[in-house]
């Protein structure tokens, strides 16, 4: 076996691949099952963006908190939320991560430091400032990561949070997942300053742009930013340029995209392909090893769907439960 | 010069915070002949409704206090005089009567601060001290009570004694920390308090749990206890109303607490809104819930009294008085008979567990007599 030239050991590389593959498989399965009408409500898929969540979350532990977006499945999986509980939640079952009361847009697992997918765009940024403040007050070296899309980065909450994090010198990383579209609206049109790094600079914190389809690019930049935040170096912004393989939500015909755009990004900017080619080419991991992971992940998702469909629905009593801790 | 044979009946002052009282009804008609201890009228304060007893003899010549009307403390509400005192003199007396100014003041001016605190080994203890002469008396309240349980007692006793009333640890405005929630622990705290205020020996008057604490002290430190007056005392039998203890500890609202407090009195109407509110205010203080739970677990677990001290006290030579309200619903009145062979026993009809409040005049007379004998 060739010498490993990567900044991660083989086990870690396999873990990263497994995470990315799990997200992809999870989302593609939802894409199919949603079209069949099996899934209530609406879902926003993370497929195509896996390298971002994975490259960042590889640096985090359960004491680090993340605040996610409406497109949160990938963040959940990468942060360690149980895939069975997620699938059951999306199916509205009582075995779900939120006992069927949150759904796709609100999956949370605070024990894993996952403070929730969030249906309100930009709402996670102030919350993660609070998580980071808590870590700072406790002095436990925890960091907070908030994800925001290129669209929600225009929310006042996000911009206010950049200011607050800078003023309070909080261990926060603002990750802008720039997939080019705020729902259907082009980022170029909707973002006045056109650069998230400029926004960070304007608030006196460093900003970095990386190719979000390159796991190693995300991993390395995130590692530096997170270490800096952990050490008390303060907040930073990380813009990941990435691609969305599916629509804003399932059922989106994506007529706003240029002709051939989707085919092109799927062909040339698939982060899973880029990662696997890189590690295979380096001779660190064999194609058969990746295929074995693919089969395991496939079985896992299959089992998660089967279990979710078989799981009990919440009952009438659950309607009134858990509004308050006590009332 | 006013006729000294004319005796004013004034609105009484029960406790520090009382500034006025409402005459709720007269129990004697004008013209009645009055003896000492006769119940004259009922007065309602924001804390409690109580009977005003006659401290003098005479004929009730004038009734001035209108039922339903509020009068300031020391306002003239009736006049006693012998039949031969002329009406004109009485009218002149009434016209000349003025609520003693300055003396009434704001309470503290009367006799220095009403409450004191002492830093004792058991922590901060709040206490009241009245009177300057005669024997020293210590008043020990019961479970969940405080020194204001002696509202109608302390001033009466202080006429001829130096009277201390304290808040036990966990109670009133004393420390809410109870290092040792046993009778011995409370007894140690009481002795520590006496050490701090420089009292070597006192006549112990204990109500309910305070009675058991007093007995424990008499057994452990007989030299410090000149006599025992046990009012509706714990420690004289196993029985106790567990529902009362649990209810008192558990209640967090007026609605829960009021019926519990009503079991303390023969006359449930004595439980005023203010009494309930004051107890709620006490129960809300940090540490009180833990203190009460610790005490109830140690002393009254499973609805029974853990300590019965009858044989020890019977053997001790401490002069002992036992007083009970016949209608006590918390600790049965027949416990009074446990010491019948060695102590003076008085069971007062028409009174409940808070007999020293409900029949203050009678109890005060018994206490004065007993302590005078034992001194």
């Amino acid at each position: 076996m060739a010498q490993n030239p990567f900044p991660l050991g083989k086990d870690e590389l396999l873990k990263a691949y497994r995470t990315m593959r799990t997200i992809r498989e999870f989302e593609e399965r939802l894409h199919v099952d949603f079209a069949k009408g099996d899934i209530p409500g609406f879902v926003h898929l993370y497929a195509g963006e896996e390298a971002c969540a994975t490259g960042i979350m590889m640096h985090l532990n359960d004491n680090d908190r993340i605040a996610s977006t409406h497109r949160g499945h990938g963040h959940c999986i990468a942060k360690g939320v149980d895939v069975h509980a997620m699938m059951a939640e999306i199916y509205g079952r009582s075995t779900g991560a939120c006992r069927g009361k949150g759904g796709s847009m609100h999956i949370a697992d605070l024990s894993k430091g996952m403070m929730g997918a969030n249906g309100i765009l930009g709402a996670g940024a102030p919350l993660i400032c609070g998580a980071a403040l808590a870590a700072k007050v406790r002095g436990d070296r925890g960091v907070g990561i908030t994800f925001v899309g290129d669209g929600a980065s225009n929310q006042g909450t996000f911009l206010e949070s950049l200011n607050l994090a800078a003023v309070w010198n909080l261990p926060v990383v603002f990750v802008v997942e720039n997939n080019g579209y705020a729902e259907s609206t082009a980022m170029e049109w909707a973002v006045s300053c056109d650069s998230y790094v400029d926004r960070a600079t304007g608030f006196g914190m460093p900003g970095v742009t990386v190719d979000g389809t390159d796991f190693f690019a995300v991993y390395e930049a995130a590692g530096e930013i997170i270490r800096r935040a952990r050490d008390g170096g303060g907040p930073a912004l990380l813009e990941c340029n990435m691609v969305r393989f599916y629509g804003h939500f399932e059922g989106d015909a994506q007529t706003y995209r240029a002709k051939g755009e989707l085919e092109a990004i799927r062909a040339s900017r698939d982060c899973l392909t880029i990662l696997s080619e890189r590690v295979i080419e380096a001779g660190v991991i064999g194609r058969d090893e990746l295929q074995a992971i693919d089969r395991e992940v496939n079985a896992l998702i299959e089992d998660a769907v089967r279990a979710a469909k078989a799981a009990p629905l919440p009952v009438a009593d659950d309607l009134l439960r858990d509004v308050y801790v006590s009332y | 010069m006013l006729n000294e044979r004319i005796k004013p009946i004034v609105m009484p002052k029960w406790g520090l915070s009382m500034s006025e009282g409402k005459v709720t009804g007269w129990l004697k008609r004008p013209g009645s002949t009055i003896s000492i201890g006769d119940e004259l009228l009922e007065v309602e304060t924001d804390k409690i409704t109580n009977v005003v007893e006659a401290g003098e003899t005479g004929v009730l010549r004038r009734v001035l206090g209108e039922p339903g009307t509020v009068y300031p403390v020391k306002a003239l509400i009736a006049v006693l005089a012998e039949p031969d005192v002329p009406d004109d003199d009485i009218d002149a007396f009434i016209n000349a009567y003025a609520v003693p100014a300055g003396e009434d003041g704001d309470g503290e001016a009367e006799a220095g601060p009403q409450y004191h605190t002492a830093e004792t080994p058991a922590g901060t203890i709040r206490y009241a001290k009245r009177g300057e002469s005669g024997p020293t008396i210590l008043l020990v309240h019961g479970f969940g009570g405080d020194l204001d349980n002696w509202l109608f007692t302390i001033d009466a006793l202080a006429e001829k004694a130096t009277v201390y009333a304290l808040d036990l640890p966990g109670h009133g405005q004393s420390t809410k920390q109870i290092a040792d929630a046993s009778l011995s622990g409370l007894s140690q705290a009481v002795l520590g308090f006496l050490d701090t205020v420089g009292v070597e020996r006192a006549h112990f008057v204990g109500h309910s749990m305070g009675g058991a604490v007093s007995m424990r002290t008499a057994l452990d430190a007989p030299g410090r206890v000149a006599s025992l007056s046990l009012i509706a005392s714990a420690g004289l039998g196993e029985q106790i109303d567990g529902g009362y203890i649990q209810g008192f500890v558990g209640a967090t609202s007026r609605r829960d607490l009021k019926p519990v407090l009503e079991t303390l009195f023969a006359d449930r109407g004595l439980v005023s809104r203010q009494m309930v509110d004051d107890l709620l205010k006490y129960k809300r203080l940090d540490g009180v819930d833990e203190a009460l739970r610790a005490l109830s677990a140690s002393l009254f677990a499973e609805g029974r009294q853990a300590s019965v001290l009858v044989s020890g006290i019977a053997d001790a030579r401490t002069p002992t008085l036992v007083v009970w309200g016949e209608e006590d619903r918390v600790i049965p009145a027949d416990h009074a008979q446990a010491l019948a062979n060695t102590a003076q026993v008085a069971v007062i009809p028409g009174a409940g567990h808070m007999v020293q409040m409900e029949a203050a005049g009678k109890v005060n007379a018994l206490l004065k007599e007993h302590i005078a004998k034992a001194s």
Partner: protein
Amino acid sequence: MSRKISMKQAINEALDLEMRRDPTVIVMGEDIVGGTGAQGEDDAWGGVLGVTKGLYAKHGDRLMDTPLSESAYIGAAIGAAACGLRPVAELMFLDFMGVCFDQIFNQAAKFRYMFGGKAETPVVIRGMVGAGFRAAAQHSQMLTPLFTHIPGLKVVCPSNAYDAKGLLIQSIRDNDPVIFCEHKNLYGLECEVPAESYAIPFGEANVLRDGDDVTIVSYGLTVHRAMEAATALAKDGTEAEVIDLRTLSPIDWDTIVESVERTGRLVVVDEAHPRCNLATDIAAFVGQNAFGALKAGIQMVTAPHTPVPFAPSLEDLYVPSADSIASAVRRTLSPKGASPRIAA
């Protein structure tokens, strides 16, 4: 040891005691220290009306001035609460909640339910409410009905110093998000308050006055107006029972209904605007659950359906007065007490 202090001091004392007791309690807000980063004194303001004055000297950096950025810091308080702290965030005037309402009603209020009972958000958001301060339309509102509408929020509005201290301590110890409404015109009002810590449980109304003829229910400043009205009515022989709700969510339905079942008459006084407020809420509840006990139509005394005016002559007309409450009581007592009357 009990002594007389103002509601402002009582709030300060509650914060001080809880910060001493629990290291996870932090306090943040605009100018709650004052002068941060400026050249002059530390602790320059202690809050815009001095409520938090002196706490910085005792607790240092656990008091945090914030940028004028309500969404960010209220959100941060909520996020910190979800991560184990017990933040008390001052939202100077609760009118400013418009700026950050999403964080309160879509985030804090929903975490527990939306996450299947697996989240706790012990945050307190405290600030000034109410008119009578010549502060005009954007600094004077009684927005309590907005908060009580939202499941997941608890809403507290004390009427005196004793309640303010005990309710704020309970709010800090409570594991749900609490909106703590401080009527600015009560800040100076003094009453007996123990120096020790104590907590007043939520959902316990305080009966300030017993009466058998009519029940007056209110909260905050208008409790005092109701007491004035009750005193005036007593001279005419009408004994009003006055109930101070203390907490609006949860609300003590039992005390209200038990009282109305005894008096048969109900006047609800609310400083909020007349539509869908606490008064309509209580009237509806009593109408539904104690209709048989009512001897007359329920009367509501509220602020008018207008913004709070600036001119003192107008603002004085805005807040329900003792006279208007007494008149409402008299309406319930008149033979035509139940007759329809269209209120503005």
